[in-house]
């Protein structure tokens, strides 16, 4: 469904991604794992158009995405839930969610999708008038994911959804990601919590120093000693 081929990305002089090749199949959870600085976030930013691709190609069902402006990529259903949540801290939960449905294609569905998000996260319904900056970390992450769902994504890309959450919230978050996936949304997951991510992923790719060095099913990678090496440099 989503195909990334030999993607090369730089920040000015800094090469963050040398050559990443992987694909995400319709209906699956694909995980992108690797140590800090391996290029995971960069990959997502390039797919959503925040960073220009210096080389390679990104396609969604055969149609090129690279080079399109970010609003157009959102309109095509590729939605990015950024690392660190990046909420609009001074706006209410409800307004944050409505912003998620800002894309022209999503606007007619704002009301219905808001209901869906509240079904998945009943907590957010209670807090819908609260200012987002005052929520707990877990609630903020729910808003971030809910905001992504408001766009009606075909592929939902989530960057470190478990980062900074209490252990019990981490479990809850991974359960919710699976639930979203079961409802028919394809998920591309970037996680530092490798063990957990690999456990729920259908397939996974290991990035190391800006390259995909290993791929396989989640279970295969979980068992692989190479994964540990990529992290700990043993």
């Amino acid at each position, binding site marked *: 469904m989503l195909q990334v081929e030999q993607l090369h990305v730089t920040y000015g002089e800094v090469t963050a991604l040398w050559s990443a090749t992987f694909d995400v199949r319709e209906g699956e959870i694909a995980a992108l794992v690797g140590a800090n600085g391996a290029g995971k976030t960069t990959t997502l930013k390039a797919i959503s158009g925040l960073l220009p691709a210096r080389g390679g190609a990104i396609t969604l069902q055969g149609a090129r995405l690279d080079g399109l402006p*970010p609003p157009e990529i*959102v309109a095509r259903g590729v939605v990015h839930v950024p690392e660190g949540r990046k909420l*609009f801290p001074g*706006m209410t939960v409800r307004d944050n969610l*409505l*912003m998620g449905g*800002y*894309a022209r294609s999503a606007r007619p569905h704002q009301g219905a999708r808001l209901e869906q998000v509240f079904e998945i996260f009943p907590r957010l319904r209670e807090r819908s008038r609260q200012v987002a*900056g005052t929520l707990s970390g877990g609630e903020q992450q729910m808003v971030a994911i809910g905001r992504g769902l408001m766009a009606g994504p075909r592929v939902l890309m989530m960057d470190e959804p478990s980062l900074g959450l209490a252990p019990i919230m981490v479990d809850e978050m991974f359960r919710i990601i699976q639930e979203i996936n079961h409802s028919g949304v394809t998920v591309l997951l970037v996680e530092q919590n490798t063990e957990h991510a690999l456990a729920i992923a259908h397939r996974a790719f290991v990035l190391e120093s800006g390259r995909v060095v290993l791929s396989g099913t989640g279970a295969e990678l979980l068992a692989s000693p190479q994964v540990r090496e990529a992290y700990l440099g043993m």
Partner: protein
Amino acid sequence: METFAQAVVSGVLTGTLYAMIGIGLTIVFGVMRIINIAHGEMVMLGMFGAYWGQTLWKLDPFLSLLLWTPLMFLAGVLVYRLLVRPILGGGELNTLLYTAGLSLLVANVALLLWSGDYRTISLSYGATPLRPLGLSVAAPLAIAFAVALGLTGALWAFLARTNLGRAIRATSQNAEAAVLMGVDVERVALVTFGLGTALAGAAGVLLAPSLYLYPTVGELLIVKCFVVVVLGGLGSVPGAIAGGLLLGVVESLGAVYVSAAYKDGIGFALFLAVLLYRPSGLFGVGR
């Protein structure tokens, strides 16, 4: 006690207009990170708009709002497209100096066209003050207050309830996240600059019957406007409203209880104290 109430009331009336000007400056800063020094000149243009409307076409100043507000919106859009956008990437200080140049240019072209004379607008209904609850309130200021309240309310509703309004707030809180939501930040900036300018112009029209008008009046107004937005926290709309009211009341009380001469000074001292101890503003959420 009565003097106190009187001072607070007139402070609130003036403060509402300060707030309106401040909102214009603060939303532009929020979205584009520009401190637009020429904002005071936009107020000045509104004032002269009201003046010429009355002098040339016998147009009631408050009615002329319907003409000048949309025109100032357009002017803002043009200024943004032609003058401001090309230098946006140039760093905070360059944009500050650039808008200072624009401010000087506009004020002095006005000086050239209209001379430096102090002018006033007299209204047939301006002579007798209103007397609610035993207080004395100048009629033009009362009308200006009511209209400003209405316009600010309308703007608030626009920002709170519409997709575009939400997009403006979202962009000023986190531009990158707004892009991820599919917001066309360029368009938001254009609309915001137009809105900010329209607010300044409308405030000018409203202020015209209550103040002396002269081409360099913007200088005084912009300094007050800085006080207002810094008090409330640069980029925050509720902050600008609170800052405007606070400055209006502090000035008004200062004039009564300290000294009319140091009225402006009290505002600036407050400003410096806030910059030093709470640079994100009295009500800012922190930077």
